[in-house]
């Protein structure tokens, strides 16, 4: 066999020795992937507990939460949450979830673990840089967590940190002192980690594909991680300097985002010449692509998993990749739709509205491709496939409300109401989380070598699927009724009658949240007690199933893989059954 064209599957590093090198300061992309996943797991538990605390407060604002006073004596005297502490928890919830969960798990976590394997490489292109990107991210997380314990408490300006509230320092209120500076520093560090990671993903996808792995043969998940890293490279490169400027405004007396003549806490602020809208432009130029950094890997993961359980390929695989690329491209032209009511020229609202609406076309094509692919399938109902189907449903529900918010004339009414909260939680939060769950049930056997418990997985699915609809669907009604977001209590006359709806949502959130512990229990229990996983438990086709579970440190035991097929040869007459693996040299015959 002529192997000269293939990249040698050379070990980029020797087998690791010693506990520290193997599991802590490891350059192995698989360990790093698990580290990212573990970090996301810790972050999501913290983020979820924060959301519980907020939900309890929103339903019953004077209800004492046992132990909360211990976490912050000033934030919860007599265990009753103060308005500023509510805002702080909300800020931390948003920041933790968006950055350390929705970016970390589907992109950095699964991407790190599976991108090199799916392209047939022994590791990432730059393993040391890869290790660095994780440790930098961990530092960012620790810096953010430190904000909980500084004297003035965590920041309270929201995950969007709008200036000048975020920029003027402690005059703007408790939490706007050191806590807000830590926020800016944490996010800046996080950007560095993402930039390094994105570079690595791009280089690995382009340069380390094994023999026969043409771009057309890449799995959807790899395509999604690749496209996401291109977006990430451009988006985080804007957020990084923006955060540095914000921190400079706070600590070095500059005025990038602060205009002159501000009187805060009865003090004329010593700033002049800055623009609060500049922060919004920079933030959303990152912020909108960030939505796709969370959701594109989810789209890729679901599209990768579904065929294995449908036993047939997706419709229009190239169209689907085209849709992902189109969404990524358009994501850079729409940031202004977050700013329809911001005071920017109202004419630009019309310009931002059109590409925003146009994004619904590739998104709809993707949805129809999934639905059309389910037609005529013989679905195997596993926890992974159920979460994929659930993903399609919540992605539709979340995407549809985008029609409303993309139009400035309607956004002027719904902006900053719970309608927006419902929209982004469904389409960005829940949809991406469903893909993370699907990915976990699907890949955990490969990652740890043990099968997860399917019964627990299905109970987890049903409680979560019904639960998220009970939580987020009513938020649309609240938004239409004009229920504004980011309020610690609903004391306004017109909001008081809506409190029962909030109480319903709170109960649903507590139950749905509790159901997540079934998942965490399953994860931990299966890791040690689950049945041993075979190499290819789902009879799937892509390269990760051509190696042992879990794979050896160099992924394929020094073998040079040769790829003969596209990634999803299901429903064909192969020697192993109704599928032909990418590495199998046999000729594919229709069944």
């Amino acid at each position, binding site marked *: 066999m002529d192997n000269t064209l293939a990249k040698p599957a050379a070990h980029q590093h020797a087998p690791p020795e010693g506990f520290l090198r193997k599991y802590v300061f490891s350059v192995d992309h698989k360990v790093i992937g698990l580290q990212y996943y573990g970090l996301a797991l810790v972050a999501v538990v913290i983020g979820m507990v924060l959301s519980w605390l907020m939900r309890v407060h929103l339903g019953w604002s004077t209800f004492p939460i046992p132990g909360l006073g211990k976490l912050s004596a000033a934030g919860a005297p007599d265990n009753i949450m103060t308005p500023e502490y509510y805002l702080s928890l909300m800020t931390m919830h948003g920041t933790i979830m968006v950055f350390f969960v929705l970016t970390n798990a589907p992109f950095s976590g699964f991407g790190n673990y599976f991108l090199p394997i799916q392209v047939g490489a022994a590791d990432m292109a730059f393993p040391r840089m890869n290790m660095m990107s994780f440790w930098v991210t961990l530092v960012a997380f620790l810096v953010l967590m430190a904000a909980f314990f500084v004297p003035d408490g965590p920041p309270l300006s929201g995950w969007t940190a709008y200036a000048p509230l975020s920029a003027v320092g402690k005059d703007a209120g408790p939490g706007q002192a050191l806590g807000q500076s830590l926020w800016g520093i944490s996010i800046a560090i996080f950007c560095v980690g993402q930039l390094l990671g994105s570079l690595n993903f791009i280089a690995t996808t382009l340069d380390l594909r094994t023999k026969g792995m043409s771009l057309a043969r890449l799995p959807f998940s790899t395509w999604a991680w690749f496209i996401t890293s291109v977006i990430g490279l451009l988006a985080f490169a804007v957020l990084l300097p923006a955060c540095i400027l914000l921190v400079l405004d706070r600590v070095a007396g500059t005025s990038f985002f602060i205009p002159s003549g501000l009187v*805060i806490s009865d003090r004329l602020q010593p700033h002049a010449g800055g623009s609060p809208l500049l922060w919004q432009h920079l933030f959303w130029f990152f912020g909108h692509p960030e939505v796709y950094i969370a959701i594109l890997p989810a789209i890729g993961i679901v599209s990768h998993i579904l065929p294995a359980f449908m036993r047939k390929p997706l419709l229009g695989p190239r169209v689907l990749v085209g849709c992902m690329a189109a969404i990524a491209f358009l994501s850079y032209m729409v940031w202004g739709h977050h700013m329809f009511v911001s005071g920017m020229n109202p004419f630009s609202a019309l310009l931002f509205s059109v590409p925003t609406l146009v994004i619904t076309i590739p998104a709809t094509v993707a949805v129809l491709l999934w639905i059309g692919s389910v037609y005529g399938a013989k679905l195997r109902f596993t926890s992974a496939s159920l979460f994929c189907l659930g993903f399609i449903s919540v992605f539709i529900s979340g995407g549809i409300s985008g*029609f409303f918010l993309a139009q400035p004339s309607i956004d002027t009414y719904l902006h900053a109401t719970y309608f927006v909260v419902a929209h982004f939680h469904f389409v960005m939060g829940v949809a991406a989380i469903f893909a993370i769950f699907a990915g976990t049930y699907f890949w955990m056997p490969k990652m740890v070598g043990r099968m997860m418990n399917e019964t627990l997985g299905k109970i987890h699915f049903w409680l979560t699927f019904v639960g998220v609809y009970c939580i987020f669907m*009513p938020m649309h009604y609240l938004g239409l009724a004009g229920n504004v977001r980011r309020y610690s209590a609903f004391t306004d006359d017109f909001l008081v009658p809506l409190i029962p709806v909030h109480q319903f949502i709170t109960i649903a959130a507590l139950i749905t949240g509790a159901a997540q512990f079934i998942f965490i229990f399953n994860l931990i229990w299966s890791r040690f007690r689950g049945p041993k996983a075979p190499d290819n438990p789902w009879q799937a086709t892509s390269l990760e199933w051509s190696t042992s579970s879990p794979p050896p440190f160099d992924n394929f035991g020094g073998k040079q893989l040769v790829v003969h097929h596209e990634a999803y040869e299901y429903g064909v007459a192969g020697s192993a059954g109704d599928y032909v693996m990418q590495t199998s040299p046999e000729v594919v015959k229709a069944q």
Partner: protein
Amino acid sequence: MGKAFAVVLVIITVISTAVFIFHGQLLWLPEDISAHGHGIDHQLMETMAGSGFLFVLSQVLLGIFVWQSSDRSESRKIKTFPGGAKPMVVTAIVLVGLEILALSFVGSKVWAGIYLTPPDPGSMHIDLQAGQFAFYFRYAGADGKFGGLHPDKIDEGNGNFFGLDPANDVAARDDITSASLVIPVNRPIYLTMHSKDVIHSFYVRELRIQQDIVPGLLIPLHFTATKTGRYEIVCTQLCGLGHHNMRAYLEVMPEDQFDQWLKAKEAEQ
């Protein structure tokens, strides 16, 4: 399992849709008291109808296909959707394309009618200043001119919320300050808005208006209220710890009652 999924999905879809429609007020919207609001409400209804249709159609279709695909009997062969990907692409482009064309065409007109038209020349000019955590409104007084703003002179303890300088500024002497936005019904209002500290937002549900007030910018807004009554003005941009308590009232009065109110307020100053 597939049948259960289909049934649960359809139940979720039916309940979600029904709560939109069969709530006491259609689509939960509060009454509209503005001259421009019917355009927005109409646009909202159109969008709700179009996207509601797509929502139900796609969820139900997913449910049906999942139901069918749960039949794993040997006799059934795996099938591909007739025509493959092409009908999907065409449907998406045609259906959604038409929907967004219609929405942007009509919606842009609604938006432009509100934000890209000059205020009525006969409008009553009111000046708004937002600050942590209150709104203040200013009427120009007999001379029809507003006094200049001097942030260094802001003194809330003495009621100088705007930072006026009546000692040196003639125009400022007869400015009338109010904590409520009191306006005559059916009279066009021209509101100029500014903030003394951080970003706030002016939101009146019944007026269908939401507008951020950004420090450093003077933001104009115009509207006409068509019904008398008392409505809440709330801040919708996170502005600090008292954000949820930042509210004022919009009081829409008959013309004569408004004139009396303004006179009384003038005498107070």
